[in-house]
């Protein structure tokens, strides 16, 4: 066992709530604290993104520490795009030494989407190999290069999965590989297509993966019909059914945000009923103030003591 709050709660059978905090484009620690204050008492752990969409921001590691000072149990997101195995392992050791208990291993968005499209990417290892790296360091007490460690990084290991990306048929197999590599909790891409997610969960259950790895279903409230349309057409691997867009279009523009929140709450309630879903990951991108309202309306408040 690690010192992770979500590992402890999952062990107890609690339906956990996580959310995320995108660090600011600048050195303003107050901006992190401000976002954090919106999530205080609302979630069991908070993800801190690692230069998401390849846009340079304050490092995930530093932002995690600011949130930890506020009493959060941060989840350090780590992508393989910007650092090789030397830097990744070094940061894993540093994070664990400073009391970070959770890590989320990701490949990372391609740099062509970000603010430095001319940058060179690294991808020395992939997300699956990163999971294996953390597990090797923690459980075997050595680096993947073989060198022994003095002090193991005691981290609860997570990953992400997009149940809607192609090829669909290998998506559960892919999770199986991650679990074998050492993944203990999983946060999914935002779910709008409940039917397809249900099918994916069926494949996950058939393989018994839900018993080895805690599945936290990802949701993102839609602010407007325009945002829903954008997500559908412009965000790779996002599956937004037409009926959802129609439902948002069906209400006046000034009421669409409210409707989006309602849809999100209904989604959480339905997700809670799916066998094997053990928590929810609420990603309210630049709309963190809504997380408390959503969690409350979905019957997920208050949270157990950390």
């Amino acid at each position: 066992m690690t010192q992770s709050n979500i590992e402890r709660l999952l062990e107890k059978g609690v339906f956990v709530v996580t959310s995320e905090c995108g660090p600011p484009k600048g050195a303003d620690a107050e901006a992190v604290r401000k976002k954090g204050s919106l999530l205080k008492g609302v979630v069991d752990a908070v993800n801190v993104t690692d230069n998401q969409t390849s846009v340079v921001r304050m490092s995930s590691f530093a932002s995690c520490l600011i949130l930890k000072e506020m009493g959060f149990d941060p989840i350090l997101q780590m992508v393989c795009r910007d650092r090789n195995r030397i830097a990744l392992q070094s940061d894993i050791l540093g994070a664990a030494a400073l009391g970070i208990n959770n890590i989320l291993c990701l490949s990372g968005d391609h740099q062509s989407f970000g603010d430095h499209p001319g940058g060179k990417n690294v991808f020395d290892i992939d997300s699956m190999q990163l999971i294996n790296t953390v597990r090797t360091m923690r459980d075997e007490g050595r680096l993947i290069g073989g060198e022994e460690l003095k002090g193991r990084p005691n981290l609860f290991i997570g990953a992400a999965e997009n149940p809607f990306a192609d090829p669909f048929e290998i998506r559960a197999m892919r999770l199986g590989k991650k679990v074998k590599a050492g993944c203990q909790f999983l946060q999914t891409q935002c779910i709008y297509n409940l039917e397809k997610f249900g099918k994916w969960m069926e494949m996950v259950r058939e393989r018994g993966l839900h018993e080895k790895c805690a599945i936290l279903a990802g949701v993102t409230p839609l602010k407007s019909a325009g945002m829903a349309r954008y997500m559908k057409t412009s965000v790779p691997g996002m599956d937004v059914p037409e009926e959802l867009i129609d439902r948002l279009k069906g209400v006046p523009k000034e009421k669409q945000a409210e409707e989006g929140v309602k849809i999100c709450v209904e989604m959480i309630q339905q997700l809670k009923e799916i066998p094997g879903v053990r928590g929810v990951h609420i990603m309210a991108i630049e709309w963190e103030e809504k997380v408390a309202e959503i969690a409350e309306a979905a019957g997920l408040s208050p949270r157990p003591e950390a």
Partner: protein
Amino acid sequence: MIVGNRKPFEEILEMVKPFKKILLLGCRECITVCAAGGEREVGVLASELKMARAKDGQEIEIKEFTLERQCDYEFIDQIKPFIDDYEAVVSMACGAGIQYTAEHYPSKIVLPAINTTFLGVTLEQGVWSERCQGCGECVLHLTGGVCPVARCAKSLFNGPCGGSASGKCEVNKDTDCAWQLIVDRLKTLGQLDRYEDFIPAKDWKPSRDGGPRTRVREDLRLC
């Protein structure tokens, strides 16, 4: 083969600005096949340069010559008799050929007219596509004959990223997702179960990351 593109004309024109006599040197190998730097392209570029310079009242003398291979000691001496008649060589070979010409004629200015891009194939007349990055340790037997290093934008070894949609890569909708191709091929071969094997972190030493590479076959050497 090695695929390249001719540099934009303006860039080449700027490079040759200080010179009145140049040797424009093509190559009959890969760069001819990908229609970037063969005899024909040498002729076209020579005409373009002469016209542009004449227009500016800065006539330029250009000798057109195309070697069998610019990357090979067997042929590089062919330009020895006349190379000193020219102030500079503009090479239309790939990056290897350009450098080989430069290292054989150390006192000569050798300029690149080609941007070398990738190791690839001719898909159809006029279309070339990347297939290999020369990583030094082939994994095609594990991945259904499709290379994750060269063909996945993130060189992922254990499956597609979350951005693969309808068989296309998130980076470019015209590019196939390598992992979609791998999965399709493994299915065709009845080997999809192979996908479940975890591929550990790659050893990049045999790749360029281990430093510039040289291959020696002692049994073939003459001295």
